[in-house]
């Protein structure tokens, strides 16, 4: 290439008078010799037939004529063509990215363009720039976008005996069409264990098992179901299901993982909502836009605000430095979670291009994104944070808080007016913006000469600084910055030190100032919020001695846990014997003794008031806060970011909903609102076919172990089609018609024959090996929480406390967190980077990903946990201790252990095997084993039962 380029340079530059055909010829020559090979070698891999980065193609003339996202790449004759800019590495879009082309090649391009950019290549296939589909073009024919129908129940004569409820007929009909038969109803031991785990996540007690097994009342099953639905444990089990769906966590994970100390309120809100059976439509409206609803009392208001934490619980990298991108990433995460959790739609794909599989154009994405960009989710700083809101309290507490606030305001006013009077008397510095270094009668070390570590911003914004400026840390890079004052010249001996700062409410209240002196190092903390006590600028640091070997060195550092901006301005070293007025002669004003007395008196009054304020603040009721969104100050529509690149703005789109949905899009929005409430109502609308279908399918999955649509979070064309589309609509319709009652739909499923089938294989299994048609019950794995909770229950150490904070007080960071709590698993903190081991090993929902379906893996680390983890060893030992405290023979003991762990009586053979185990553990034992040996035996019996498949699965 280089040689060719040089060759070009030696050619004479063409004159203006050259004929058109000559020009073309030369241009053609250039093209074939230099341009074409360069394009092929360096450009077409990313801008050719296979890929069109930024929408640009360079493998045909039309490609560069039309150009990419930034417009035409080449304009014949235009020496500022974008392509030239790019290959010259001028405009920031440096191409090719792997290294600049040789200068000679660049000059060949310049010449070629100057000559008219001859290019004989014609387009081979369609140009694929970022076009956006208009809503009219959107394909709405996909099944999940169709309105709900109320299908006729396929009853027929031969189905009557087995079917209990309408839903059974749909199952049976499909089985019969395939010439298959359903499984028989499961035995009562199996049923009682199944329903207990499915509704509460806990095993039935021995009494509950025996009572149900011996019950003859035909309504016994329904009674059990009703009882379980009424237990608080129901919400703990089903709330946790929803927490999976909405990627609940109590830390942000990722880079600098931050704790979410208020996230437990959202968890409790979810649990409570399931227990109260909050209508599902209301439940989702609250989570998207609870803050915009009206409420009847403060408790309802609390719930509504806490619910919107849903939008903020994502895995956000608050540390990201480009805040524009961070904001769009958060919006993206919100849309993605709403889309998948509530509508089974992967909206996120449309951030960069029209959705390839589902009818979601990019314009739809930005119409929705505008709504969340108009919502306040983030508070920015170097490491940003999430939005928080104050929670309302009951009338009594509110009155109390109002009183406290009024009292505090009164005290602060009083303090302020007294301070003003002092300032007035002292002839303050207020009007003096800048204090001249020479006006101070002492050694002055100014910030301008100090050594800075980290970025410090210079400022003259607040008056009262020494020298020409002061500097501050911008409240960023906490713990990383410092300013060191040195070179105090001949300041040897004892000196009284003063430090100056400019005050303000955004300042840090505890700034550490370190003074190195002959006796070592002293650290003094100063509050930079109020004006300095001396002339509004200076604070005395104390008296220190310096020597030639150890001259003065004063360092102001910002702290990792700083609560505001840190100021560095100047240090004054004055002889010890010198008075303040002598040190600051121009600031001092002559005051009469009366005035001096008044100042002293005011000062002591202020000190008293400060004490009172402190006391008041300590005694004050602390208002609880929640992670919650608010409306942004300036709601509005946003532009499409071309290819998802935030800085590349495209067309502005009106805030709106998915155009593929069949009913009316919402009306033009009130400019002062984000549109969140309208969106929430649109999602929860009974006409929205996705919302009810997705939730009905989830409930079916949580009960039956597999969804009618297996891809629970994806009802788009890359998801799976429903196995029983009519049944799905039947269930979705019921959900809506029973006022969106989740409990009611659960109960219906629980009472069906379909749910109550046995799980063993039948003759039909050979033809329906995946059980797509529900010819038997699916065997379900115990979840991580079930395993832990069951072990605690049989070990009799389960702490029954419900709700409330889950993270131990004083926790700063999730690493090394000790999960010692013995409460139910739903109350253990869920950190994104640190989970309890039992969660990690047994496929707990990864809180980094929105995923409504739990993985079900079987791996060696699970076996190792069941073999060796202290939790199972300790709890089984507790269970054994309790067992041995009862007066029972070996048979009865084995029976009881089986009931506690597997929820059933042992078979004869099983009992024999366990008896052997109990005997075999101490092979050296002769005669009666010792108490300790007996305890070992029964510990091992319990542990082995908990390792067996009938424990790990719910049949």
């Amino acid at each position, binding site marked *: 290439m280089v040689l060719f380029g040089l060759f070009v340079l030696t050619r004479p530059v063409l004159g203006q008078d050259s004929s058109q055909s000559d020009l073309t010829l030369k241009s053609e020559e250039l093209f074939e010799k230099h341009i074409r090979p360069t394009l092929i070698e360096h450009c077409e891999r990313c801008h050719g037939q296979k890929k069109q980065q930024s929408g640009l193609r360079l493998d045909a003339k039309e490609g560069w004529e039309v150009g990419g996202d930034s417009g035409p790449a080449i304009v014949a004759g235009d020496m500022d063509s974008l392509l030239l800019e790019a290959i010259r590495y001028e405009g920031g879009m440096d191409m090719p990215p792997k290294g*600049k082309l040789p200068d000679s090649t660049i000059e060949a391009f310049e010449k070629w363009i100057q000559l008219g950019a001859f290019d004989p290549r014609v387009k081979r296939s369609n140009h694929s720039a970022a076009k956006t589909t208009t809503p009219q073009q959107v394909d709405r024919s996909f099944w999940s976008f169709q309105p709900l129908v109320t299908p006729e129940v396929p009853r027929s004569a031969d189905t009557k005996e087995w079917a209990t409820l309408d839903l059974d007929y749909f199952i049976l009909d499909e089985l019969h069409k395939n010439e298959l038969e359903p499984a028989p109803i499961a035995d009562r031991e199996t049923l009682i264990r199944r329903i207990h785990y499915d509704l509460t996540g806990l095993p039935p007690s021995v009494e509950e098992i025996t009572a149900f097994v011996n019950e003859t009342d035909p309504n016994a099953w329904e009674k059990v179901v009703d009882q379980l639905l009424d237990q608080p444990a129901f919400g703990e089990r089903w709330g946790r299901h929803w927490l999976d769906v909405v990627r609940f966590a109590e830390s942000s994970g990722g880079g600098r*993982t931050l704790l979410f100390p208020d996230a437990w309120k959202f968890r409790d809100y979810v649990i409570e909502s399931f227990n109260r059976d909050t209508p599902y439509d209301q439940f989702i409206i609250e989570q998207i836009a609870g803050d915009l609803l009206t409420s009847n009392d403060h408790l309802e208001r609390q719930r509504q605000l806490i619910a919107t934490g849903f939008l903020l619980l994502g895995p956000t990298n608050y540390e990201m430095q480009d805040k524009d991108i961070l904001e769009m990433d958060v919006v993206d995460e919100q849309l993605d979670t709403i889309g998948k959790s509530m509508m089974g739609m992967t909206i996120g794909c449309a951030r960069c291009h029209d959705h390839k599989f589902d009818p979601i154009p990019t314009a739809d994405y930005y119409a929705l994104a505008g709504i969340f960009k108009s919502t306040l989710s983030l508070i920015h700083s170097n490491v940003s944070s999430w939005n928080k809101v104050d929670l309302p309290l009951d009338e009594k507490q509110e009155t109390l808080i109002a009183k406290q606030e009024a009292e505090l305001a009164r005290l602060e006013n009083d303090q302020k007016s007294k301070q003003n009077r002092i300032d007035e008397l002292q002839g303050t510095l207020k009007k003096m913006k800048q204090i001249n270094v020479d006006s101070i009668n002492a050694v002055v070390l100014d910030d301008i000469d100090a050594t800075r570590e980290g970025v410090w911003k210079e400022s003259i914004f607040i008056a009262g600084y020494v020298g020409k400026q002061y500097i501050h840390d911008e409240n960023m890079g906490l713990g990383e910055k410092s300013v060191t004052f040195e070179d105090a010249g001949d300041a040897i001996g004892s000196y009284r030190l003063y430090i100056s700062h400019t005050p303000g409410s955004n300042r840090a209240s505890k700034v550490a100032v370190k003074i190195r002196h002959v006796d070592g190092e002293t650290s003094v903390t100063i509050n930079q919020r109020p004006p300095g006590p001396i002339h509004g600028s200076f604070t005395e640091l104390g008296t220190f001695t310096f020597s030639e070997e150890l001259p003065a060195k004063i360092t102001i550092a910002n702290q990792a846990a700083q609560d505001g901006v840190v100021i560095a301005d100047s240090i004054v070293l004055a002889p010890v014997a010198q008075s303040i007025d002598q040190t600051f002669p121009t600031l001092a004003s002559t005051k009469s003794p009366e005035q001096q007395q008044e100042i002293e008196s005011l000062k002591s009054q202020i000190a008293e008031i400060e004490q009172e304020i402190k006391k008041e603040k300590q005694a004050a009721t602390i208002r609880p806060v929640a992670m919650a969104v608010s409306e942004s100050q300036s709601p509005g529509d946003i532009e499409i970011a071309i290819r998802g690149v935030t800085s590349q703005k495209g067309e502005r789109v009106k805030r709106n909903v998915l155009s593929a949905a069949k009913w009316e899009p919402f009306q033009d929005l009130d400019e002062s609102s984000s549109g969140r409430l309208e969106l929430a109502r649109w999602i929860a609308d009974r006409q929205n076919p996705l919302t009810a279908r997705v939730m009905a399918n989830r409930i079916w999955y949580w009960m039956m172990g597999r969804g009618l649509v297996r*891809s629970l979070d994806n009802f788009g064309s890359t998801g799976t089609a429903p196995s029983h589309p009519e049944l799905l609509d039947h269930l979705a319709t019921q959900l809506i018609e029973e006022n969106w009652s989740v409990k009611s739909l659960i109960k219906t499923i629980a009472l069906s024959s379909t749910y109550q089938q046995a799980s*063993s294989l039948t003759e039909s299994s050979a033809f329906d090996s995946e059980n797509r048609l529900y010819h038997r019950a699916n065997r379900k794995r115990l979840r991580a929480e079930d395993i832990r909770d069951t072990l605690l229950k049989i070990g009799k150490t389960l702490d029954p406390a419900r709700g409330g904070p889950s993270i131990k007080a004083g926790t700063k960071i999730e690493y090394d967190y000790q999960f010692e709590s013995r409460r139910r698993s739903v109350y253990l903190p869920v950190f994104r980077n*640190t989970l309890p081991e039992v969660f990690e090993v047994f496929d707990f929902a990864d809180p980094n990903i929105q995923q409504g379906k739990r993985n079900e*893996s079987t791996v060696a680390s699970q076996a190792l946990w069941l*073999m060796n983890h202290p939790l199972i060893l300790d709890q089984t030992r507790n269970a054994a201790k309790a067992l041995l405290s009862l007066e029972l023979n070996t048979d009865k003991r084995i029976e009881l252990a089986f009931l506690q762990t597997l929820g059933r009586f042992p078979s004869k053979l099983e009992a024999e095997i366990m008896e052997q185990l109990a005997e075999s553990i101490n092979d050296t034992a002769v005669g009666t084993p010792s108490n300790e040996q007996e305890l070992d035996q029964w510990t091992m019996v319990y542990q082995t039962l908990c390792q067996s498949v*009938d424990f790990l699965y719910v049949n």
Partner: protein
Amino acid sequence: MDHLNNLNRRTLLRSLGCGFGHIAASALACSSHAADSTSELINPLHERQPHFPARAKRVIFIFMQGGPSHVDTFDYKPILAKRDGELEVFDDARVLAKTKKITKHRIFQSPWKFKQYGECGQHVSELFPHIAKQVDDLCFLKGMHTDGVAHGPATLFLHTGSINLIRPSVGSWVLYGLGSENDNLPGFVTLQPSMGNGGPRNYNNAFLPSIYQGTAIGRAGGRASDIKLKNVTNSRWTRPQQQRQLDILRRLNEQQIAKHAGTAEFDAVLNSYELAWRMQITAPDLLDLSQEPEHIQNMYGIGQKATDDFGRQCLMARRLCEAGVRFVQVNYGDNSNNPRWDQHSNLEKHAEHALNTDQPVAGLIQDLKQRGLLEDTLIWWGGEFGRTPYAQSNGTGRDHNPDGFTIFAAGAGVKPGFSFGQTDEFGHHAIQNKVHMHDWHATLLHLLGLNHEQLTFRHDGRDFRLTDVHGDVVHEIMT
């Protein structure tokens, strides 16, 4: 995860043929027997064929957390000494991200002297005297650049190819693509990983099935001599007791499974206990370095104060590789927000980190070479980014530099004694033969016989890959 359950009775019976009683006689003999006949079906991590013949079978990634400075180690820039102290305009990545402005910075010379080494004449600073002796085995990439200015994002990008979105780690992708070479150990191990800057997300499987997640052994801040695999020792039962228990468990499980009339889904459970038992027997020995002869330990600097800890990690890495672990990451890091090599001030501290790691890394390369393991093992040494050639805020250190830095590779499939790519005269931006982290990921997969565009996993209705829509294989560095 359905394939986990696709096991048939025949397989089950075969695998049960070597129950726990038999394992007692010879755990490893049984393991290889099972591997021969049934691992394809029983073990979801079974070895898989690559897309095309692989140059490397396994990887050791030596992670230098915090961002070692390339201009003080391998990327020699004489101009820094000539113009030391002068102010010059640099488009600093952090300043740019925050303020979108370009400012002046003070050029800062390296406190360390450079010399050329080996036949290839590679420049190395006096920070790495041991590695310097190995340069003829190393392949330097000096035109690296990456995404992310802060540690969290850049570290996640290095490990997962994304600064903010949740994606599987490189090691998980490799394991997913190739499966495990052994059946009594995890296939992807990270030794003493940092809990900061992404923490477990740096070795997580994300949406890939959980069998592909990295197994952390120990954690940063602990001592390498103390680390062990979780749950492989029992505080209550002796080994014979536990063996009997597992025999009884097998009989109990057989009873229960028989009752359920031929469902295959339990076979994986039975298999998991067998694998667990083998792991429990194998793993502790593997991490026990006292079995290594003294001269080998000395090679890694074990026993010397500065190098003992990292030397142990490196030697464990070799032992894990020998035992068939597919992807081993050794970590020189800590759990802080300014990890190890992060010298924003006091650049001199680089000397401490170099001292701690130089001999262990050189020892590892040498040891792999003398055992012939370097022929099919790929070594990757590097941090999440480099450092600026100018002083940060005119102080005594250097800020992060994602726009240009150096990594090196060694072993299987890469040219020895080779250097590819360069930064500008100061060492700020990569300018020639640039290799983006995505390109390096693509290249790494290629060396393992995997096409980065074909190694995909369907999640959320679309196919994901390590390199997203980017990545070009760097063929120039390959043998």
